[in-house]
């Protein structure tokens, strides 16, 4: 069928571009699985969480809270805060949607707006192609979910020093996301330094150190971001640093 051809190739392109993402996801998900195991999740629960959430920082925060036996409301709030960047990315994607695109695709694309999938999707010239997005999802989400389950299963089998080394993979990924824009923009650099510094201070200052890790993340994120937004408001047409 002739009209199907361009759609099929967009999916295939998404699959191809999704392979390096899947490899990275697999390694990081393994490290995430170690955190999930520490929180007492079964391999199935970890795989389910990864298939549904597809979020590194968000899932890491979730597992930390599960391990601490946090209140459900706290989980909802922390999930909201730690994943707020996806709101921004979805806003950016919404500007690239063709007016004639069926609404169902908005619900489909929205399922997996991650740093990396958003990155390759927005980097493609022209309007958003949902099938390209789906191709990248089809290869990377299973890698993410299986990696998490294996991390939970094999975290106990692996030697302690290998687990110790893998446990920083996630933080390495966070650094890869925040450091390059911090180099390009002073305001982002201040965000990163203020985040590091305040988080460290909150860890030992009296009263503040008694806050749960989730509440600490919420308070610091809202406070620091608001102050920096007041001092360094972004211009109307300023391009993103990424």
């Amino acid at each position: 069928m002739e009209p199907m051809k361009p759609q099929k190739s967009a999916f295939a392109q998404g699959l191809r571009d999704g392979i390096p993402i899947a490899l990275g996801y697999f390694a990081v998900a393994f490290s995430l699985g170690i955190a999930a195991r520490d929180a007492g999740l079964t391999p199935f629960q970890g795989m389910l969480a990864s298939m549904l959430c597809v979020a590194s920082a968000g899932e890491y925060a979730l597992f930390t809270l599960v391990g601490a036996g946090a209140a459900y409301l706290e989980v909802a709030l922390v999930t909201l805060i730690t994943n707020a960047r996806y709101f921004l990315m979805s806003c950016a994607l919404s500007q690239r949607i063709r007016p004639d695109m069926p609404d169902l695709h908005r619900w489909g694309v929205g399922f997996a707006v991650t740093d990396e999938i958003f990155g390759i999707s927005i980097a493609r010239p022209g309007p958003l192609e949902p099938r390209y997005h789906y191709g990248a999802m089809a290869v990377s989400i299973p890698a993410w979910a299986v990696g998490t389950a294996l991390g939970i299963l094999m975290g106990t089998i692996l030697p302690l020093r290998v687990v110790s080394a893998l446990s920083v993979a996630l933080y390495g990924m966070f650094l890869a996301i925040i450091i390059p824009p911090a180099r390009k923009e002073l305001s982002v650099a201040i965000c990163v330094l203020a985040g590091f510094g305040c988080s460290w201070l909150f860890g030992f200052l009296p009263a503040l150190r008694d806050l749960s890790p989730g509440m600490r993340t919420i308070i610091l994120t809202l406070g620091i971001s608001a102050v920096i937004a007041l001092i360094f408001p972004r211009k109307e047409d300023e391009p993103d640093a990424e």
Partner: protein
Amino acid sequence: MRNNYVYILIAFAVIYAIRVLPLTLIRKPLRSRFLRSFLYYVPYVTLAVMTFPAIVEATMLPAAGIAALAVGIIAALLGGSLITVAGACCAAVFLIELIFR
């Protein structure tokens, strides 16, 4: 007793709403300059808060965590991809702990 499945479903509901609501509801750019700036900075602050000092506390030796932080920042500054930076951090921890522990 809290249930792990309820935790997972709450996280999924919130995260899917965050991702899909801008795509389905907001069809125009945000107007408030403060709100746009605020939302722009949120991810960087959150990830920074979650990375430090947690990276130092994640390893067996705190020095290995500090090395991972330094190596990760340098690798990211040099333009390393996600996998490269994450891998460099892991390698730093492995080497430091192999030598000193």
